[in-house]
């Protein structure tokens, strides 16, 4: 039988995405083997991230200052907003170095099967930003799967009365893909070839 403190740690690891029972055990045993100082540093980093990182009140990006570093970057074009499902999609767009606008993180995608409706993602915040600012274009970069496409259509419908140019990334990817796995070249092409919806 695994000692309770060890079993406890393994159990905590399995709650993380992509970590199965075996990987969780491997991680826990690796931590046991290493010096105590490393474990303390890891625990401190986890606590610090929870204490100091929060969502930007403008764009929902993860940040330690409000508004976030992207929202306050004077070199960026404030009239462009790229809409993504999750904060971890931002680096995927950033890696192309072609995009110099702002972001808006939805915090998910529409999925009736999971009980996620329009009120559960931050479309209202996006609409507010478009209304209050001088936005030239909204680029919708939700995932190229069924849920991402429906979310894109929903956003386009909400923005239509506001008269803002609304575009969708052009993916050469098969449907069912995930933004997370798009490489730099694919992403740059998708941005370049974006179309109005």
């Amino acid at each position: 039988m695994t000692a309770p403190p060890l079993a406890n740690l393994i159990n905590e690891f399995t709650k993380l995405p992509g970590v199965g029972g075996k990987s969780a055990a491997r991680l826990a045993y690796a931590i046991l083997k290493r010096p105590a100082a490393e474990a303390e540093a890891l625990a401190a980093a986890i606590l610090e991230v929870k204490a100091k990182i929060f969502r930007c009140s403008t764009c929902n990006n993860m940040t330690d200052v409000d508004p976030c570093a992207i929202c306050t970057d004077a070199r960026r074009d404030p009239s462009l907003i790229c809409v993504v499902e999750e904060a971890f999609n931002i680096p995927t767009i950033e890696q192309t170095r072609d995009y110099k606008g702002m972001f808006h993180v939805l915090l998910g995608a529409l999925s009736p099967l999971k009980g996620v409706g329009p009120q559960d993602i931050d479309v209202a915040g996006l609409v507010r930003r478009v209304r209050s600012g001088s936005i030239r274009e909204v680029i919708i970069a939700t995932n190229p799967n069924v849920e991402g496409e429906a979310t894109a259509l929903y956003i386009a419908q909400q923005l239509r009365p506001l008269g803002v140019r609304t575009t969708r990334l052009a993916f050469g990817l098969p449907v069912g893909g995930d933004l997370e796995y798009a490489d730099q070249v694919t992403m740059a092409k998708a941005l370049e070839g974006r179309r109005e919806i």
Partner: protein
Amino acid sequence: MILASVTANNFRNLEPDPITFHAQTNLVVGRNGQGKTNLLEAIYFLATTKSFRTPRLANVVRFEQPSVFVSGALQRQRIEKALSIGVEAAESRRRVLMVNEESVSLHDYLAAMSVFAYSAARLEILRGAPEERRRFLDRGVASINPAYLQDLIRYARVLRQRNALLQSGSHGSLEAWDAEFAISAAAVQRARAAYADELSAAFAEIVARHGYHIRDLRMTYRPSGVDDPARVRRLEIRARTSLAGPQRDNIEFAIDGRNAAEVLSGGEQKMIVLLLKFAKLELFRRRHGESALFLLDDLDAELDLEILQNLLTRLPSETQLFATSAKEPVVGALQSGPHRRLVIEKGRVIDSRDFS
């Protein structure tokens, strides 16, 4: 494409010895219950990862064995391919698909080998629920356009999402899901309609060429569409489910406007299904410039043997055929050209002889 050999491990009663085949016609004979159909089923399984007899794959695994494994050597345009498929019987249903000893995706695996099967169970195409006919059509579309499977998967996902939304009773995003539903439904129905057109034309040609007495049989694709979207939407909100779309498509087989399943005798129905299979095979050959494998399971004497013989002699010579029958006259009709006769007993080929 030619299947040179197959080896089945724990597949029903088949023994794990390699079985080699004739490049043209293979007649599998033997007493009932010895494994004739099992051999054809193993070939079908190797090509499609499915069975033509049962939706439950656990049924093909030999009693009390943990998994099933079938491998085969395929020649396609002079290139040898080694295919293998392993499936666990347990809850996990873990599946390993390999081409030339490399693990591949389902999509790539299915593209490696193509097979069409006729069996008496396929009469469901005429007699069964519309779902049977949709599946019959979908398999045909996918055989000439493997990317169609992606369209189907996408559509099924949108349908589930839309039904969940209607079920929930809150419709804030219904318009967005409707748009997504319309796009994916149109892709499926466009592909089905195009294939149904080609298939009914090829079918009519075959019927005419062989002078089959039932000439006025019409195959009509009936897509489930919407004339008045606003009205249907209101009904759907009340019913809390989708009421129109590819999930309600049908294909009608009619003679003088009457349902073929009600008008035709059992033997005539078998003949119609057989002719449809020949039509599918022909469409595949036109599209790919090569023939798929053709499995004819449990041919019985109710079929029009003269036409069957005619059909077989007119098949392009590179079409590899596998047929089973327990009926002597049928076996007689099949052995007119060069062929191999495989005698199967207790899951083992005990005699294999070539005739020219």
